[in-house]
């Protein structure tokens, strides 16, 4: 019965003269996303609204699911499209719609008519009253409430007549591509995919870097990260995943630095590498999944010491989240199941039994002096030999 969706968007409506840019971005993101859905669609922008119309057969569930991954979409309204064949026919169709959509009739409703085609013989108020009366007559269990209706039935008179009442929530946020690009440090864990999702939600394109440490991490661990990147890219669009071989640097740190500082020093070099690749790729910020106090390397002191190596802004969207809150988002975006597959990632393999939790920047810098001989060459090699995997969820 539905052939059409009305797409609601909020924030981009208030962007002044740039509004059309945001709307165009949203239209193109909707088009891109619908390519993975069975069916053909036309996406149109019409007097401040975006409509998605199916051309021929399509899968309703899949379409709604796909639209729910498009940032900028606040609500998806399935619309019944009626040809204008006079009032009696319209009344019949509206009654049938109410019957089908609301099996339980013990609810209040209001009919709101909008008449874009001013030549329609009845005016909005009149038409609303008449339809409301007919619905009540057909189903006396319904009641009318013009102030706080449980069901707001909208009837729009355009070339055709649009009838809708349901609003399926979208992900919100801003359309992709309206806010630049950032580089996500993606591990195999629960947090980093969520962090990528959250920044992408603000319209930022996301690329990613993963640190691979063979033979200490397996190809399966890498495949898991590719799977995660693919899941995130369902929302964030095409993603360039850079796989950096980090083994030699890790072993060099292990050989040259105090064991309890290994993790913090390692993270500093990961940030450096990520920033280097980000710069080359046109990203203007880094994204991590850090959350204060979650592990030794995420105390405020550790974060400060890690942050110190970067000049780019580092976005940490999960910084104030509890673990459960992060898990909730990962369940929502469907990355949780993949994240909990048990493969080692390179952050855990050499972890000291008691890593430092309150590192001192001067002490860490002094330890890093032990790496002076080779580290610059190793960093360059790590950046130069990174493997690029292009991902499009």
């Amino acid at each position, binding site marked *: 019965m539905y052939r059409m969706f009305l797409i609601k968007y909020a924030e981009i409506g208030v962007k002044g003269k740039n509004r059309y840019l945001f709307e165009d971005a949203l239209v193109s993101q909707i088009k891109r996303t619908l390519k993975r859905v069975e069916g053909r669609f036309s996406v149109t922008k019409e007097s401040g609204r975006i409509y998605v119309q199916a051309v021929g057969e399509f899968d309703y569930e899949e379409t709604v699911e796909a639209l729910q991954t498009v940032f900028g979409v606040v609500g998806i309204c399935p619309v019944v499209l009626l040809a204008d064949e006079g009032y009696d026919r319209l009344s019949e169709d509206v009654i049938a719609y109410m019957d089908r959509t609301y099996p339980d009739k013990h609810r209040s409703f209001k009919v709101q008519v909008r008449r874009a085609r001013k030549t329609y013989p009845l005016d909005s108020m009149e038409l609303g009253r008449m339809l409301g009366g007919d619905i009540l007559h057909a189903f006396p269990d319904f009641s009318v409430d013009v102030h706080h209706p449980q069901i707001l039935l909208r009837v729009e008179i355009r070339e055709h007549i649009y009838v809708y009442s349901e609003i399926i929530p979208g992900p919100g946020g801003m359309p992709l591509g309206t806010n630049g690009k950032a580089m996500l440090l993606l591990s195999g864990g629960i947090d980093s995919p969520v962090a990528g999702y959250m920044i992408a939600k603000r319209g930022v394109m996301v690329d990613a870097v993963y640190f691979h440490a063979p033979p*200490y991490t397996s190809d399966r661990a890498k495949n898991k990260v590719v799977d995660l990147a693919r899941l995130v890219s369902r929302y964030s669009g095409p993603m360039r995943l850079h796989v950096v071989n980090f083994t030699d640097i890790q072993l060099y740190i292990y050989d040259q630095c105090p064991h309890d500082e290994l993790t913090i020093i390692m993270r500093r070099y990961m940030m450096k590498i990520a920033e280097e690749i980000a710069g080359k790729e046109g990203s203007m910020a880094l994204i991590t999944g850090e959350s204060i106090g979650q592990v030794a390397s995420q105390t405020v002191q550790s974060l400060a010491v890690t942050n110190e190596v970067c000049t780019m802004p580092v976005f940490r969207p999960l910084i104030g989240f509890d673990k459960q809150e992060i898990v909730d988002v990962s369940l929502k975006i469907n990355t949780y199941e993949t994240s909990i597959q048990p493969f080692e990632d390179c952050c855990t393999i050499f972890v000291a039994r008691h890593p430092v939790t309150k590192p001192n920047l001067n002490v860490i810098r002094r330890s890093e002096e032990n790496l002076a001989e080779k580290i610059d060459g190793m960093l360059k090699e790590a950046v130069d030999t990174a493997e690029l995997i292009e991902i499009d969820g």
Partner: protein
Amino acid sequence: MEAYLDNSATTRVFPEVGELVMRAMAEDYGNPSSMHRKGVEAEKYIKEATAGLAKLLKVQDKELFYTSGGTESDNWALIGTAMANRREGDHIIVTDMEHPAVSAPADYLEKQGFSVTRLPVDRQGRVDPGTLAEAVTDRTILASVMYVNNEIGSVQDIAALAECVHRKNPRTYFHTDAIQAFGKYRIYPKRQGIDLLSASSHKIHGPKGVGLLYVDSRVKIVPVIHGGGQQQGMRSGTDNVPGVAGFGLAARLSYEEFEAKREHFYKLKKRLTEGLLAMENVVIHGMAPEEGAPHIVSAAFPGVRSEVLLHSLEDRGVYVSAGSACSTHKRNASPTMRAIHAPRELSEATVRFSMAETTTQEEIEYCLETLGKLLGTLRRYKR
């Protein structure tokens, strides 16, 4: 150079087998259940395979049933006999170091109200016949003992164990999971007192997705898979013609020139074992090399995590497994490591080398040489 030493996980199909399988799929693709000529042609493949396998095992054709693999055979052996005989008994015996294909259905039966005894094994992975006999009661439906252990290659004296069981209770059935033994030992169920036996095709250079269960004609068993009544109604489902044909040929080829192959296996195993023991701090699990299975060597390299060693070897073209290949997703010590009470520092440092008749002396040398180069570095970096 490449050395594939993970043949207990799976083997490469013999070229002749691949060709036969292809022919059964592309040319004689009929369904043996069809009444027309195409069906008859396809049926010939099955008949031929069955005749060959029955001859190898010295059993009757009608005592062989094809399944989707070793796991299904084991499941059927346990669940099928338990269900068929639950009025006469309610007790099942397995050992502590069975493959999950046996231990999991045993756990399942326990939940269904059967009682299950899990026999301990010694440090070498041997089951004591006396202990087994003691466990058998007049309520025991089935005792299941693995022929060759998949992780450490321990071999049981199956005839002796079966005899113990039958002497204590002649109505108790004896099942053996012979998935790692078939093709490596001459197995004659009738002479060894085996009532049910599971085997798998892909461990002996046949295709994946096909296994067999030998069921002595006296055994009371009910089907687990119900349907169109194929295989005497005991295992429904369209006959897997390519799989069964390939399995039959692979089995026949595996037993050709058997003595020479056996010698080849033990020669490789001897060299591998000696080479490993010559390295610093290496422990070999299981029985003495000449007593254990010809194709499996399980060794621990204390101080190196098995996964790390596996991936380092893999980088250099040497393929081995860490514990059982089926259990890569579980982080706990494997059932066999627990059963032989291997201490943690050994179990988490254990790697299995498993050979095939196609394995060469050069591959073994290359593997040893690679290990020799790697161990020092790997031991230097640890948690």
